[in-house]
């Protein structure tokens, strides 16, 4: 019965079609995920992939991937990446150019900022249903914390804590703000 099961399994899926994007922000970029929900054979492989596009100076993160390592290969453009370990040290803070690859270990915190040309990458993940946890934005861990936890953890006034929680309305990919504009000027 193998020919009825694994032999007929779908093994191909296209993740370049931006009209099928899972994350889309016209000011920032888009992302297509390929996980075992979309391509069931990935459950056997315990792997998944992500195709990402960030527009000029747009930001993704900071975030961490809860259950997978990330192997990120830049296919076009460039981006600045910062990767932080559990000791709070930046283990990578550099530009990744086209054809360069970086491994982001599980749980290490990451932020990506596209360069002037924008950036496209393919990311392979070592879990068939990789999940990220963002630190800024609408569904972030910081936003999920009570204001009082923030005020006591960071020793800041309540107003500042509320700013931290609510100033960024976007979810995963952030449009470049005033700082980028100042930086370019």
């Amino acid at each position, binding site marked *: 019965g193998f020919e009825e099961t694994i032999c007929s399994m779908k093994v191909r899926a296209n993740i370049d079609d931006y009209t099928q994007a899972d994350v889309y922000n016209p000011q920032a970029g888009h992302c297509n995920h390929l996980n075992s929900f979309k391509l069931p054979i990935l459950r056997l492989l315990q792997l998944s992939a992500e195709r990402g596009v960030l527009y000029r100076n747009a930001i993704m993160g900071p975030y961490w991937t809860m259950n997978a390592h990330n192997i990120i290969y830049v296919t076009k453009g460039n981006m600045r990446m910062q990767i932080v370990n*559990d*000791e709070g040290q*930046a283990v990578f803070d550099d530009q990744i150019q086209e054809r360069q690859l970086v491994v982001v*270990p*599980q749980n290490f915190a990451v932020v990506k900022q596209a360069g002037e040309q924008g950036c496209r990458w393919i990311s392979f993940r070592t879990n068939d249903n990789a999940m990220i946890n963002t630190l*800024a934005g609408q*569904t972030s861990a910081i936003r999920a914390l*009570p204001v*009082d*936890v923030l005020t006591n953890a960071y020793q800041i006034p309540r107003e500042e804590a509320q700013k931290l929680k609510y100033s960024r309305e976007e979810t995963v990919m952030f449009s470049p703000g005033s700082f980028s504009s100042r930086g370019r000027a």
Partner: protein
Amino acid sequence: QQKNECQIQRIDAVEPRQRVESEAGFTEFFDTNDQQFQCAGVEVIRHQIEPQGLLLPSYVNAPILFYVEQGKGFQGMTLPGCPETYEVSQQQFQGRKGGQSFQDRHQKIQEFRQGDVVAIPAGAAHWIYNNGQDDLVLIVLLDSTNFANQLDQNHRRFFLAGNPQQEQKQQQGRQQSPRGTRQQGQSLEAGSNNIFQGFDVDVLAEAFNVDRETAEMLRCEDDRRGHIVRVERGLKVVSPSMSREEQWQGQQGGRGRGQDN
């Protein structure tokens, strides 16, 4: 696991070998190099959190199961994609408290008390607060060899706030390890900096869409309180507290079941 980790000739009962003090409590570490822990692929730590003590938000590369040996408290766990279902609206609060403006919304909070076992998935950010009158004592198991951990077998805690590295440096001056060196698990747990310290302040300011000064506060560089901090006026969160719930259930019981749908 390496070949000989479970070739055990003798098992001894062990006690914590190391303690890291904080402003409002301490954490004790069992020797992770002990063969029995290596064989089982687990690590064990013990938190003792004073009343009004807050274990700062962090996440760990291994799943956690902890037992509440003493005291009571609550914990918040942030899971990606979960909505902030605990919320207080401005109007309601104003009605009750005479016009003070306060509003908050966050993910679910779990209360626990002595005898409870609480599970935390690998990589889920969490914090713990002692809202009782006694010290809160937690026996924490970290399953480092769990399939969910794809890093090495040491548990690694990623702090979202505070400056535990600074705390550790101060500790080093005050006390020596029993073996003269720091234990591996201990250094990984409490020797961590807040992860925001690894990011450029300008990038943080842009990501959070806040000014540079606010972004700087995330790094907690001057914080000397350690990983368990004292909340002077008590932590106020949106929570259906146990006592209120029990009171409500009591009232319901008193009315009888005539009002049931």
